[in-house]
């Protein structure tokens, strides 16, 4: 009965969240000298992303784009409920390996980020981080209505409605959830875009970095990472 009373009212003032591990601190070196360690500066690179121009020779760029299109390495990160569809995609029934699609466990080696459905704000933070860690060129394949307009979570307090407000999306696959066939179609669409040289969203992200960042920070209150996660 007294439980209600004990619930603390969150303060109305906007609080900047600070991760205690990344707080500035004074440290004593082995020779006794004291100095300040600022983890956000000392642990993380603060460089901004740059635009990487495509190869100036069109034939070469075309060839490279073909290679990129035929070798799509997917970041294995089940962001939403749709990740359940990734399994069938890679197993005998649909066997996406045929099309050069292959899962990779690390963003550093991946080219395609599959956003498989709704994104909670908490997940969005991780998605942004992983997306930024992928090397240019990189592509985003968004699955399901949730990534387009919020879908059934359109009025949720905790999920985002439009993914392309936060990271650029190359191809949407509609459905709730889209089946693996639809996913394969999405991959094909993506391949077409890449081959046509239209999948330069990594550069778009770099160009419109401030806009994306502002959008991201608007929704992620506890922003406790560097602006760009290398």
């Amino acid at each position, binding site marked *: 009965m007294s439980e209600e009373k004990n619930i603390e009212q969150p303060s109305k003032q906007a609080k900047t969240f600070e991760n205690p591990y990344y707080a500035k601190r004074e440290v004593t070196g*082995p020779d006794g000298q004291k100095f300040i360690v600022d983890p956000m500066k000392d642990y*993380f*690179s603060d460089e901004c992303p740059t635009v990487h121009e495509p190869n100036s020779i069109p034939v070469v760029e075309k060839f490279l784009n073909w290679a990129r299109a035929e070798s799509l390495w997917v970041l294995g990160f089940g962001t939403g409920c749709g990740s359940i569809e990734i399994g069938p995609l890679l197993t005998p029934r649909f066997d996406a390996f045929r099309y050069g699609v292959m899962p990779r466990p690390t963003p*550093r080696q991946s080219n395609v980020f599959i956003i498989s459905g709704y994104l909670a704000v908490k997940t969005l933070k991780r998605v942004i*981080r992983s997306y930024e860690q992928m090397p240019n060129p990189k592509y985003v394949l968004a699955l399901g209505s949730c990534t387009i307009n919020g879908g059934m979570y359109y009025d949720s307090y905790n999920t985002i409605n439009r993914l392309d407000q936060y990271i650029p999306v190359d191809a949407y696959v509609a459905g709730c959830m889209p089946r693996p066939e639809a996913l394969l179609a999405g991959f094909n669409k993506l391949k077409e875009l890449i081959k046509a040289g239209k999948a330069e969203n990594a550069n778009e992200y770099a160009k419109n970095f401030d806009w994306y960042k502002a959008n991201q920070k608007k929704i992620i209150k506890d922003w406790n990472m560097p602006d760009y996660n290398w």
Partner: protein
Amino acid sequence: MISPIHIITIGLGVAFALGFVNKKAKNFSATIMLVAIGLMGAISVAWLTALLQGAETVQIFTAGFKPPYSINLMMGIHEAFLTTLINVAGLLGGLYLLQSLKNAGNHAIMVFLVFIMGLNVIIMTRDAFNLFVFMEVVSIATAGLIILTETGKSIQAGFKYMLATGIIAGILLLGIIFAYYFSGTLNIDSLAEANITTLKGGSVAVLMILVSIILELKPFPANGWALDVYEASNPGISAMLSAASATALYFVLFKVLAIANENWYHILTVAGMLTFIGSNLLGIKQNKARRLLGYSSVGQMGLLMAILGLKPILGDKLEFIAATILVSHYLAKAGLFWLAGIVENDNIKNWSALRRKPILLVLFGTFLFVLIGFPPFPSFYGKWELIMQLSSNQHYYVLALILLGSFLEGIYLFRWLGYAIKMDFETLPELNINWNKIIPPVLFGVLVYVAGYFTSALVPELSALNYIPLLFIAGIYFIDSLPAYIKNTVAIIGMSIYGYQILPPLYENDMLRFIFAAIFIGGGILTLTAGYAYKGKRSGFYPVALLMYAGLAYIIQATNTLEFFFGWELMTAGSYFLIIRGKKSMPHGLSYMLFSIAGAYAILAGFGLSFAGTGTYNLSSLAGISSNITIIFSLLAIGFMTKTASLGLHIWLPGAHAEAESDVSPMVSAILLKAGVFGLLLLIINMGHNTETAQIGYILGWLGALTALVGNLAAAFQEDAKRLLAYSSIAQLGYILFALAMMSHLGLLTAMYYSINHFLYKAILFLTIGAVVMRVGTHMMYKMGGLIKNMPLAFIAVLIGIIALSGVPPLSGFGGKWLLYNAILAKGWYLQGAMVLFSGIIAFLYLFKLIYSVFLGQMKDNLRHVKDISIWFAIPVYILIIGIMIISAKPEWVLQPLGDMISQWYPNAALAWNGGLATGPYGYWNGNGIMITVGIMFVSLATWLWMMSRKAVQVKQFNIVYSAEAPQRPETTHISYNIYAGYNKALGWIVAPKITAFWDTMTEWIHSLAQYVRQLYSGNGQLYAIYVLAYIVVVYFTMIF
């Protein structure tokens, strides 16, 4: 020349005259006493010089009659020498006791004078009854001194003493009177002529006389009364008892032995050895300083008694042996008891108080080393000669027991030294030092060196010894108060000059010695260069470091076994002090020393046996041994293997090397261990051609392989960087032992190549890691990480070091592996060889861990601003790296001369050189070409990749993919602690510390045994009296049967 009788007249006269002096004029009395003792001493010194110059021994007949009708005194060389000792001790002891004597009053001063006079007479008299009388006089005087200068418990001790000596004296008197009854004379010489042991009753008389004198020498276990006195009385008096009384009584035994038959020699030997071992065993459990000294004192007298018992064997060497050991004991024990009086703290753990006055610590160390018998002290020569004589006469049991007893003695003495050097002393009270207390020990400290010098002059085998290094060390000691960089410069210059003198001739004549000398001296200079990184005075470092190098140089230059052993012991002493300088080195220093002593004794025994076999000390005579080859080889090999830290004898190494200072670790690892290798090489080139040694070689091969395996595995599981390198050294020496044990051309070549290489890369690694440790202030690798950014110089050095160590082409380590393969196949040691090669691969585990945990991975906050390693460490490191590079690119420059050298002993087994291409019995290898090929390929690939990724964004430590998260702390992100957990789960059982556990159990047993045995000394004076009587009975029955 003044008649010796005036020693007595002065003593007695002044003592009586002091009775008339005003009781208050204590200063006057004391001065008179000292003057009197001085005069007595002057007479004995005068006689000593005269006799040394060839004067005749004189006899003094007191009443004008010849014996047996009068008491006669003798002044020969023995007497003159011993009375000199006693009077010097008396003079200094009197000086030391000045305050106590004055406080006790004129009586005490008189008694002290009578005590010294009595001892003089005991030595000089040739009359049995007179002997008894003066022994009683001394005994009463002792008791008087105890009661007059009473300190707490000394009264009880004095009573026990009186009771026991009273009984002993009674027995002695009975014996004398019976002897008189049977022979009609009291003169010892006439008694000896009368040969009364042949009579039934006569032998009882002799028994009573001898057994009582033996009892006066405090044989175990009938010596509780003496121990109590040593412990409880004024240390000045204990010093007198231990130095002067014991000396005099020992001479009594020497004199009286003339009347005994040869059975008594056995009794003496047995009694002596029993005492030596028994009291040294009990000393281990003792932590009261003065009682410990008592045990040691009793033990030394036991040894001397045994030596006397060995008279028939030792022959004319007896005097030399007995005199050296006696003098050492005399000087050291008096000095130690005096120091005990200065420290005024009876717990040996509190002797660190000595560090308040470093000179006292030096004295303390000196005296302890004298007792153990280290060079250059007299006891060293005595023990050497004793062992040589024993083994030439096949008295192996006695030999073994003497070495065992000495080892037991070493345990407690070095533990004590360790406490003094390492325990905290700030909490202890200031020392209260008077001038009169400090002069005697200092003088004795100087005397012990002088005595050592003169003793060495008596040893013909050491005539070629070069004393300049030792003098140089003494010189360094005297400038110890200067800043470190000056001493460092002096030391480097000294070593360079020495190297300049000895290296060129060695290069011409003796390649083997040249190589090791180059490692020792060159390595010495390089490691000393690192010493510039140290600020301040670095007190005491340079003398001991140079002592080690001097020992190594002596080993190199030794032509006979004595010189070799001399150098070996000096090196051991120096390295002990170097090792124990480390912060937490106390237990490791002790275990190092104990293994070293045990190893040195094995070497001593081996040399003894070889001397018995060949009759010469010449080192090359080892080749001519025809009997006992197996034992000699094994003993010497075990001795040398304590230095190379082979499995089973290795437990001292990790701690000792890890805890040593940054520039000491390379000294003791890269350089010192090579002394053992040098010894083994000498052994193998001289004795390796026998079938017996080949069999031992087989065992050694397996041992080497096991050492390599266990060493490397253990290294992989270490978290302490220096400990890791220490285990790595064990393993590397395992390879060397394995290769040496093959006793083939390729085996020796491999071993030599490994030795040179190990010197280079282990010096690099230890110096660099040591320098890193100096910067970061921890040994623990998991507390470091990411240091490559701050310490590129160190990183490159370690990288090259580990590539060379691991045997990855193109650096020099690969040559070793290649040779090893060929040697293994040529020798046919396939399985052992596979084990060695396997352990070589395990090396990758720890090498990776070393470089990764320290330099790569995540940087820690507190190390964010550390600087690169000190330039003084970097210089020697990079010089060594140049060396590695040269050997890697041009292996033939090293291997060809080595091969030529080894061909002297083992003909070349088809290792042919064609430029840089070596063709062995099984394969071929072109170090030069590989270096070029790999170099070109590496550089072009590096350039290519650089072209592709030249625009790379430089990111920081937390810019890693981390499952879409960011790491929170470097400490938890740096994977270093126990990274080989899986490997440990699979193979950790191999390196479970079974050997350490074994030695721990041994130690525990010895302690339990000592604890059990020492309950004999219940503290009850009556019981002690019973022991005395029982001892007589036992000896009696022994004589009957």
